[in-house]
């Protein structure tokens, strides 16, 4: 036995990196939706990556500060860069063979073909607007009003700001650059600066501009509205003229301007209509003349003005997908395209950019890139070519805030159960008929077609082809790799993604309607309340029940107040109860009408930065505070972490090399609190027993950087957390870098000893009988920042666990085997015989990133905030889904796929070997027989 163990450990140590990515499985088991977010309309354009390039790409800067190049052919991302953090303002402009983008105070020029940085410049002021003059020389307008010329990353000249003026926009006219400012209570100021010298001259215009009014400038004209969209004024630049005034139509809620060359389009929106007025700008006379106006059509549409050759084209895209093309001279429709897509009527087109290429005989090739918004889903993008939607990108999923797993149904058990359930509710004859039809149906299902398919299935199995699923939809596959992840967007959309089928969108439903989208406060949490039913708790105080397989809303209830937090409790058998904590610590139980059963103990965040333990009475639902946790005066609670809902523990102890056992301290009510102290730059970790509020363990890390992410994850009897540690801790030298700390809780210090609770049959946390764990810890230096941690989950918990870490700087997720982080790794000496047998390596403070453990391999994941895991039907496999920006899904086998034949197992080879052996035996057997007979006869003779 001992020998066997030794061999096994040896084998384990020799094995390649656990849950590594196999070359033939990469891009097969994992999927990735690279999302960028909502495009900023003024920073989105078609542009030829090189001056002589035939095809153009779509370049866009999004509200998530991602600059991306999209291939208009298939919607794939050619390159993208995350330029800032959070939602910051940005501008992107096209330049020769380059794209120049400014986010906050950073101005960067990127190669348009491959996205390589050409130059960069950083200012302490935020950038308000940016224009490109020849080559890749940029003129930048800063928020403080100063203007600078930037060439090759260096400031050539800077023109100072005038106090009190609010910078609006920047425009280039010939050799001059003009900065437009709004002067409070006075009007507008236009500063003209020659691009060569940078010498400023100003002129002012009086205008009464209200906060809702718009100011727009193109190369030749400045347009603004006055008196809260009551009047529109045009001013042609470069000539001495006064502003032309036009009264705006009544009941207009929004006015947008678009210009290209000498054409200016004014887009009016009322509640139910939208139309446009097209103006021609005469640079010589300084006049603006109305060319034509377009008749009103459906509201919330989008216009785009584009030039091709000497012609200017206007495209008008309606929410139902209809598209009209106009010239710049008259209101005649040059071409119109009807849409084949069905529309639910609540869509609005946020913005559109077009590329129009005239073909022969009054035919045009029109490509329009639009961003649409519907309730719950903001800024999905589509490319429409001559009225046909070529591709769509679900950019609204970039704002996923929460997710839930949906178990699919087992076809072997539940399909029959469903049928039997139907029979049970019928009378005898009806049930009999139903059964007969069911059997007849089975005869058809497993009839000639099924029989004819057997050879195909067998060859598939032998050739190792992907097994064709006979059932899809709500029926799960044999190994349980398919599961739905239902995610909620920030805007109130609910989407089900099939994680086993490359993130296919199964259904989507909106929890908000167009009218009340302004009051939407977000989804608090999604729970699977019963098989196939989701319960959605919203922050605003609603409870929705949604069919998990179809996406149909079943019920909607009012909880009775704003929701602070919620949790789900198992209440005997399969019934589940959601406890919702409303404002004022009132408790509601969901689904409505369900009973709590027995008193519950919950933990809520108090108002003054404390943590409270509450006892919820099972009948009256009144709460009694059982304990409170107050951090040190200078500390505040950073985060609270608990064990995953599904966290089975296969073994209660850890067998050591000498066959003694360290018993794990197992308590499902453990929570971890991270408290940070920015003033003293320290972080404190507390492990609490959440029913009694007893602090079981605490650790203080002086020199922890509180401005960088501090994250933690818990599972079984251990905790892993990471922080950035500095070089000096309380005067002692330290190791600078990201630290990964593991703490494992055992019942007692000595093996084979179960601590004070050894003899107890039952024990109660309320009586304080929970013992004190013996905690072992190790700290490691990790080479990268970790923004989020997760842990793999398997069905029985037999498979070893892996800690999943999101590394934002290298845009990847790494899987660290728990065995690597073991706090029992011997320090300062090589492992003894017994420790080697346990699989412990000598402690080395620095962990290296093994590229083979990078789950996303060559994919780049941007903006991931959370990783969630769920078990597959196979014990060896854990399914992973990551969201928050990009969406990523894969599955891992932390202890190798021990319960399934992998792709490396060649059935053909096995058969070949058996056949070869058979042939060999057939040849050798007569020889051996003859020899044996000969031998006997010859010896006897």
């Amino acid at each position, binding site marked *: 036995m001992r020998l066997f163990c030794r061999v096994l450990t040896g084998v384990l140590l020799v094995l*390649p*990196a656990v849950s*590594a*990515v*196999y*070359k*033939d499985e*990469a891009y097969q088991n994992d999927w990735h939706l690279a999302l960028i977010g909502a495009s900023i309309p003024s920073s989105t354009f078609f542009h030829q990556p090189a001056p002589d390039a035939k095809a153009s790409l779509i370049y866009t800067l999004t509200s998530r500060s991602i600059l991306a190049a999209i291939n208009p052919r298939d919607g794939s991302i050619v*390159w993208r*860069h995350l330029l800032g953090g959070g939602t910051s303002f940005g501008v992107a402009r096209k330049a020769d063979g380059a794209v120049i983008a400014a986010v906050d105070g950073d101005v*960067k020029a990127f*190669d348009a073909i491959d*996205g*390589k*940085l*050409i130059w*960069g410049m*950083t200012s*302490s002021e935020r950038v308000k607007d940016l224009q490109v003059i020849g080559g890749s020389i940029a003129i930048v307008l800063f928020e403080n009003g100063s203007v600078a010329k930037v060439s090759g990353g260096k400031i050539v000249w800077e023109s100072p700001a005038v*106090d009190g003026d609010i910078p609006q926009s920047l425009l280039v006219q010939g050799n001059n650059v003009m900065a437009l400012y709004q002067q409070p209570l006075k009007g507008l100021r236009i500063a003209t600066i020659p691009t060569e010298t940078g010498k400023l001259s100003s002129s002012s215009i009086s205008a009464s501009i209200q906060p809702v009014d718009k100011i727009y400038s193109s190369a030749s004209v400045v347009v603004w509205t006055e008196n809260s969209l009551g009047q529109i004024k045009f001013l042609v630049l470069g000539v001495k003229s006064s502003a032309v005034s036009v009264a705006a139509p009544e009941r207009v809620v929004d006015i947008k301007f678009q210009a290209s060359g000498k054409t200016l389009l004014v887009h009016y929106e009322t509640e139910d209509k939208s139309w446009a007025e097209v103006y021609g700008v005469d640079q010589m006379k300084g006049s603006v003349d109305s060319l034509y106006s377009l008749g009103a059509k459906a509201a919330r549409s989008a216009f785009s003005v584009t030039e091709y050759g000497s012609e200017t084209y206007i495209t008008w895209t309606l929410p139902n997908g209809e598209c009209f093309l106009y010239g710049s001279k008259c209101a005649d429709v040059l071409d119109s395209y009807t849409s084949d897509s069905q529309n639910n009527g609540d869509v609005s087109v946020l913005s559109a950019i077009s590329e129009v290429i005239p073909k022969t005989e009054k035919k045009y090739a029109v490509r329009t890139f639009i961003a649409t918004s519907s309730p719950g889903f903001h800024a999905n993008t589509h490319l429409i070519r001559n009225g046909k939607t070529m591709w769509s990108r679900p950019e609204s999923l970039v704002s996923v805030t929460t997710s839930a797993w949906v178990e699919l149904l087992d076809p072997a058990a539940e399909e029959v159960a469903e049928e039997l359930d139907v029979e049970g509710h019928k009378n005898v004859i009806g049930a009999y008929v139903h059964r007969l039809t069911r059997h007849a149906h089975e005869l058809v299902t497993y009839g000639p077609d099924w029989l004819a398919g057997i050879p195909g299935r067998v060859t598939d199995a032998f050739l190792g082809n992907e097994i064709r699923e006979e059932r899809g939809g709500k029926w799960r596959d044999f190994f349980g790799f398919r599961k739905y992840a239902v995610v909620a967007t920030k805007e109130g959309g609910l989407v089900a993604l099939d994680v086993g089928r490359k993130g296919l969108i199964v259904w989507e439903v909106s929890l908000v309607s167009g009218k009340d989208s302004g009051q939407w406060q977000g989804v608090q949490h999604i729970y699977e309340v019963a098989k196939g039913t989701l319960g959605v708790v919203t922050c605003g105080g609603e409870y929705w029940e949604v069919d998990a397989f179809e996406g149909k809303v079943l019920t909607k209830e009012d909880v009775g107040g704003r929701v602070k937090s919620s949790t789900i409790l198992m209440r005997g058998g399969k019934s589940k109860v959601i406890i919702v904590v409303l404002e004022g610590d009132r408790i509601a139980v969901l689904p409505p009408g369900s009973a709590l059963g027995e008193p519950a103990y919950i933990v809520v965040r108090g108002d003054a930065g404390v943590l409270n333990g509450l006892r919820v009475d099972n009948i009256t639902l009144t709460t009694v505070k059982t304990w409170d946790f107050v951090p040190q005066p200078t500390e505040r609670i950073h985060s609270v972490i608990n064990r995953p809902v599904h966290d089975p523990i296969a073994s209660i102890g850890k067998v050591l090399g000498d066959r003694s056992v360290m018993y794990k301290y197992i308590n499902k009510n453990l929570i971890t609190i991270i408290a940070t102290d920015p003033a003293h730059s320290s972080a404190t970790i507390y492990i609490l027993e959440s029913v009694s509020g007893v602090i079981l363990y605490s650790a203080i890390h002086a*020199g922890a*950087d509180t*401005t960088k992410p501090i994250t933690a994850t818990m599972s079984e009897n251990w905790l892993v957390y990471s922080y*950035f540690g*500095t*070089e*000096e801790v309380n005067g002692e*030298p*330290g*190791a*600078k*870098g990201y630290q990964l700390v593991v703490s494992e809780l055992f019942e007692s210090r000595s093996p084979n000893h179960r601590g004070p609770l050894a003899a107890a049959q039952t024990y109660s946390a309320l009586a304080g009988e929970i013992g004190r764990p013996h905690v072992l810890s190790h700290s*490691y*230096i990790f*080479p*990268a*920042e970790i923004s989020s941690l997760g842990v793999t989950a398997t069905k029985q918990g037999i498979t070893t666990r892996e800690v999943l870490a999101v590394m934002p*700087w*290298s*845009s990847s997720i790494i899987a660290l085997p728990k065995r690597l982080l073991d706090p029992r790794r011997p320090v300062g000496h090589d492992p003894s015989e017994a420790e080697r047998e346990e699989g412990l390596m000598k402690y080395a*403070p*620095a962990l290296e*990133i093994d*590229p*083979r453990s990078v789950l996303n*391999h*060559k994919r*780049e994941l941007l903006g991931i905030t959370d990783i969630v895991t769920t078990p597959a039907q196979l014990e060896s496999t854990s399914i992973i889904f990551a969201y928050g920006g990009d969406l990523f899904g894969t599955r891992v086998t932390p202890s190798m796929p021990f319960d399934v034949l*992998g*792709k*490396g197992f*060649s059935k053909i*080879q096995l058969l070949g070997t058996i056949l070869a052996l058979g042939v060999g035996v057939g040849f050798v057997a007569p020889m051996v*027989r003859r020899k*044996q*007979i000969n*031998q*006997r006869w010859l*010896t*006897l003779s």
Partner: protein
Amino acid sequence: MKLLALLSFLSAIASALDVQGTFAPSPLLPNPSTLPPSTSLTLTTTGTAKRTLIRRDNTFSFHDVPEGSYLLDVQCQTHQFAPLRVDVNGQGEVVVHQTFRGNEWRNKGEKKSYPIEIQPVRPIDYYIVREGFNPTKLLGSPMVLIALFSLVMIVMLPKLMDQRSQVDPEFKAELEAQQRKGGANPVANFDVASFLAGTSSSPSAGGTSSGGKGKKN
């Protein structure tokens, strides 16, 4: 107020400077231009983290780095790089050292030149290639070699014996005597039933029984 802000801005500029460097060609990476455009560098210390991208000309630059002691890391999809320690001191000097993760920060490694020259440590391979069936590798494995050797011996040894007995009549006689004494083949004579029953069988009895079987054949 505005002036004050400007002053503080100017003073920040005075004590902050740019940290610059290049990705130098090396045997592992003869042409650094092949690095992906997403290759980025981070300069970290307590309270700040600066990030920059590799430029088209394979240089990089961090703007306005305040005085302090920093850890410089490179994130790249295709190559791994060693961490560096970058010290920006009050005199506007940048001092670069090799550093080792997990060591005390004051343990400096080899001093490097400034501007920083960065060279990869090793290329990154994300994948494990599954070992397929490979006949040459199979023949190379020791188990197969042993098996082949014994097979050869089984075939060759009797032939060798025969040859020797032809040459040497004495040896032949000795061999025949030995065969008569010890029975033909101990394995063929082995009686499984009696072995399992625990009764030891005499070799002669085994001999007759197997002889009987032989006649049946």
